[in-house]
């Protein structure tokens, strides 16, 4: 047991625990990428990690800055073209978990990474959807990880980049989307799962030392809790060491490149 860790580290480690050895995971950059690689380096050594640049079964020694870093290709089982990636592997239904981050998220797991404000005259133009719109509908399940904030977790998102559960209930089914959709949300404060009927994200576990007030204060919708709230196990020594070593290796590798400026 180690009580000396950051909420960010907790988030990454808890997210890594959700992944299984036989998962085939389509990895988003940032927090999802760190979590997926911690899973691979701890309890899920045989997990298949796929990045949208076409790298299948990759095992990077450092965290990539982009989804197409050389490290991903060099350590992959194989690398396919981008059209093949989206056609055969994602649309073909071979991905068990799509792991996404979000700029804005609502309580039904709908994600906005397109614009803040109006689409035609945006306040902030964000990068857009990339692979996410089809990851959200073609992966068997979607896991989401993000830090809680009032700006990020909102009652109403400004743009439906990637469809979660719509306005809840069985809206996915009624739109002929036959995958499960968002089934897990890991934040820096809690573990959330959709209510089986309403599909609203509900807190199932508070991370050690986190109160209900802290969760509500950094969430833009009225938070609901499951009947039996658990306390998330803090990171183990092994998990923390694995994450810190990975970050350290990444830092060293990137600073080595800095010298070349």
């Amino acid at each position, binding site marked *: 047991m180690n009580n000396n860790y950051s909420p960010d580290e907790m988030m990454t480690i808890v997210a890594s625990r959700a992944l299984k050895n036989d998962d085939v995971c389509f990895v988003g*950059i940032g927090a999802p990428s760190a979590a997926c690689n911690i899973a691979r380096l701890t309890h899920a050594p045989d997990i298949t990690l796929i990045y*949208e*640049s*076409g*790298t299948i079964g990759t095992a990077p020694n450092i965290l*990539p*800055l*982009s*989804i*197409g*870093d*050389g490290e*991903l*290709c060099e350590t992959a089982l194989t*690398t*396919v*073209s*981008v*059209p093949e*990636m*989206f*056609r055969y592997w*994602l*649309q073909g239904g071979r991905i068990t978990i799509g792991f996404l981050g979000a700029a804005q998220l609502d309580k039904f797991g709908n994600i906005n990474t*397109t614009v803040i404000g109006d*689409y*035609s005259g*945006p*306040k*902030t*133009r*964000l*990068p*857009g*959807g*990339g*692979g*996410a*719109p*089809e990851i*959200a*509908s*073609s992966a068997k399940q979607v896991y989401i990880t993000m830090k809680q904030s009032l700006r990020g977790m909102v009652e109403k998102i400004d*743009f*439906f*980049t*990637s*469809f979660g559960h*719509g306005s809840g209930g069985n809206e*996915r089914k009624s*739109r*002929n*989307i036959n995958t499960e959709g968002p089934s897990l949300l890991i934040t820096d404060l809690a573990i959330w799962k959709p209510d089986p009927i309403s599909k609203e994200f509900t807190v199932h576990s508070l991370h050690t030392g986190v109160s209900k007030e802290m969760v509500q204060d950094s969430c833009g919708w009225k938070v609901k809790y499951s009947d039996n709230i658990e306390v998330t196990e803090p990171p183990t020594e092994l998990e923390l060491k694995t994450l810190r070593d990975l970050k350290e290796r990444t830092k060293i590798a*990137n600073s*080595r*490149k*800095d*010298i*070349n*400026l």
Partner: protein
Amino acid sequence: MTKFLSLEEGVRENLKPGNQVCFEGFTHLIPHASAHEVIRQKIGSLTIVRMTPDVIYDQLIGMGLVKKMIFSYAGNPGVGLLRRFRDSVENGWPNKIEIEEHSHSAMAHAYEAGAAGLPCAIFRGYMGAELREVNSNIKEVTCPFTGEELTAIPALNPDVAFIHAQKADKKGNVLIEGILGVQKEAVLASKRSIVTVEEIVEKLDCHPNTTILPYWTTSAICHVPGGAHPSYARGYYKRDNANYIEWDKIASDRATFLSWMQENVIKVSPKIFQNRIKNLKEDENE
């Protein structure tokens, strides 16, 4: 039938004002030198196409050469947003570009349809996604066999494609290995294409699957060592991540951007790229 040209000639012969043009590359092998040559020749009113517009698209937009952009993810990979693209869309500087926005899956399918000589791409996409509401090129189509509602978008057939590759042989056959992206599809979908390469060799002498484009499929081969920098070329040099991080600062201010472009693009030639990769060579960093 391909010709061996200097990059200046290759651009001048193939790209005209008002053309639809793509500079493809998926993190790996992004044709930076080609985009800089287009900027030097001030070829404008372009419709630029790319799955992942990044630094060079920020530069083309900021220099006022772009009328419209067709894309699926406009960001500085691993760093953040594109400042010049944002300034255009949010504030109309130097002009407000028109955008046609897609998902990666859609763009990949559209290039593939273009390469396959089909008028449109059909796939299962945009389910519940709001891009359907803002992009009139996203339509529904019913499968005549199963009745499933699918999505159709027009094929992409740019006037010109620019790509960067590791090698060409003396005839102009092109080799790419590593992350392949959508370059083969982009070249075959386009009316004309220019390939910059790290090296021109007698014989490719390679794995039987790595010669991706026979010499009769492209318009010009241009020898530009380092031509992908700050992107990378597997086997030659690494991605210059620090340069991408630095771009965020340069692009955040209009005046800083313009003076950087003057010094680093307008006043130089494609030859400068070989100097930029000197300290990034793969073996020297191991």
